[in-house]
């Protein structure tokens, strides 16, 4: 992961929700990098902070949420603290976002073509022919007949809506596309088709993807690296295959075992007992210890850092050989 290939560097990012009873830290000191053309998957249960993290990276947080600490270095520039005007130069040209539910993100009272036009006109003065040409082109990229430029979102199926969201994100062929659970409202065949589509586009146009989901098995074949989040922190970060074949953090293991399989023996699964913690009342020490089958006394007292274990980063005391390892050099270089 050399500097030359890095397109996004997040260092020590923390996001707080400002509440009358005191601030709640939804994202706690998260650091990671994304290289050009890389597909990073971020997984976790509801409430782990993954969507908040995404919004923090894209500078889309609205009150009461705000960035409390850290930096987001995109192509060399720190996005945190930039004005809206400075950000709008980057938005959609170099970095775009695909939301969870197209019905929430697409304007229901204007046609798809009109929304593409809005986006294109926000960054320059294209002529009518240029607008028409580019709009048709991006729709074809995602396999939608350009005749649907005249359609309204409710006239398209769920799968087509999501694909037109991706088409819209591709209008300027950005270097990075951030996706927040774009497949969760789709059926299984449409989900598969969408994932394959995204991967193909990635191969052809070379953009990087950050993909947030709660469904690990969905991205197992598509992401290069995987980041597992829990209670606002990164619990495990490493190559996708590596994590699936050899999950290290007890939470990751629990997650992987919570998926009923379609083949293989039918065994009873337990899932992970308990619930994710209330961020306003976090447990002492390791945030996962109340639900961890391997927790010991020390886990209730010491909050673990991210330790390098083989090729991955893992937030677990017991995996760091029972002794308090120093955070790795790599981790240190990511934090300011």
């Amino acid at each position: 992961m050399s500097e030359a290939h890095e397109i996004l560097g997040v260092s020590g990012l923390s996001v707080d929700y400002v509440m009358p009873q005191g601030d709640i830290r939804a994202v706690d000191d998260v650091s990671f990098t994304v290289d050009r053309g890389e597909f990073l998957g971020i997984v976790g249960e509801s409430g782990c902070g993954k969507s908040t993290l995404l919004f923090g990276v894209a500078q889309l947080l609205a009150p009461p949420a705000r960035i409390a600490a850290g930096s987001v270095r995109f192509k060399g520039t720190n996005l945190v603290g930039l004005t809206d005007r400075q950000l709008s130069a980057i938005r959609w040209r170099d970095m775009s976002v695909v939301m969870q539910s197209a019905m929430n993100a697409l304007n229901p009272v204007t046609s798809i073509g009109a929304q593409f036009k809005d986006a294109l006109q926000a960054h320059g003065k294209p002529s009518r022919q240029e607008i028409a040409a580019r709009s048709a082109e991006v729709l074809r990229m995602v396999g939608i007949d350009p005749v649907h430029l005249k359609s309204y979102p409710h006239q398209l199926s769920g799968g087509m809506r999501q694909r037109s969201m991706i088409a819209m994100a591709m209008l300027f062929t950005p270097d990075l596309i951030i996706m927040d659970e774009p497949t969760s409202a789709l059926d299984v065949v449409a989900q598969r088709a969408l994932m394959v589509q995204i991967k193909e586009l990635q191969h052809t146009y070379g953009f990087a993807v950050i993909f947030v989901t709660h469904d690990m098995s969905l991205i197992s074949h598509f992401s290069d690296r995987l980041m597992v989040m829990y209670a606002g922190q990164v619990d495990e970060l490493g190559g996708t295959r590596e994590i699936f074949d050899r999950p290290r953090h007890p939470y990751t293991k629990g997650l992987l075992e919570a998926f009923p399989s379609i083949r293989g023996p039918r065994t009873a699964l337990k899932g992970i007992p308990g619930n994710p913690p209330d961020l306003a009342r976090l447990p002492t020490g390791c945030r996962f210890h109340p639900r961890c089958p391997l927790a010991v006394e020390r886990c209730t007292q010491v909050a673990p850092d991210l330790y390098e274990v083989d090729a991955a980063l893992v937030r677990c005391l017991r995996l760091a050989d029972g002794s308090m390892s120093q955070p790795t050099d790599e981790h240190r270089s990511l934090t300011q």
Partner: protein
Amino acid sequence: MSPTELLRADHLTRHFKIGNALSRRTLHAVDDVSFAVGEREIVALVGESGSGKSTIARLLARVYEPTAGTITFEGKPIKAIRSRRDRLRYSGLVPMVFQDPFASINPVFRVQHGVLRSLKLHRPELSGKQRLDEAARVFGVVGLGTDMLQRFPYELSGGQRQRVGFALALAMRPKLILADEPVSMLDVSIRIGLLNLMAKLRDEEGVSILYITHDLASARYVADRLIVMYAGQIAESGPIEDVLTRPKHPYTQLLLSAVPDPKAPLSEVTDRGEPPKVIDPTPGCRFRWRCPLAIDACSSVTPVLAELGAPAERLAGSGEASGVAPADRQAHTVACHVAQSGADVRAFAS
């Protein structure tokens, strides 16, 4: 009727009129569907959106009236259930659990409100104290502490709210729970808990469940039988392991191949996942446009659900046009001309 049969649907049909006065068209949400559910079993009703599975749930819950066909419960047609008392009794025996944990509970009341109301309506013989005790009991059965009774919905997680939904259904001492995608909106890691709960309800409380979902993996985990729906009709049906290991209908094979499995290599799926809107359909198989194996017959003759190897003449045009032979719910049936012809169908590799 087999002795343990609880509910059966015969030629169940539901159409919706759509369009304005100028262009009247008909949406065939459910067309000629026949199936049965027995005691102590979980039947999974699987299909994409638009397959008609949710409409079937609402037909069984009497939210809609059927356009044609009959529903029989405990041997009696439910159309005959007219008085308020009988309606109430039916809704207690066949309650529904909803999909959206955030929209299915009234947000302004404490979570015990729904359970207490259900008890008041369906078990009027209980006193106020007995109602509270029963509410605590069913909360315990679904794995919620009694302290949860006093909480408001916004204090509970999605998984906990869905458990409240099951508690509500349980309080009425049901025979058959209609679970309409009860886990689809929950995180995958939370689903297992709810699925285990459903299995527990079948085994320990003796309740049958019609589990409606689009997720084959969870259906496999918890169900005894599987019914695959496509475009308002049943494509395939049978014991779950049978159907999943030897799927005969190309659509079932498509679904199987699209299920993500981290342990297996990625299967080739080119289908875009565009389920049909079934408006004024023509005769013939509704899957033919997406089916790589379609033959001539598929465009003109609507396939009939039948056991594999059963001669077509026995079923086509006879009194029991389509539907599972009454006594044998365990038969593996499929509605596909190509599969019925005996060919070894492999439309989609999985």
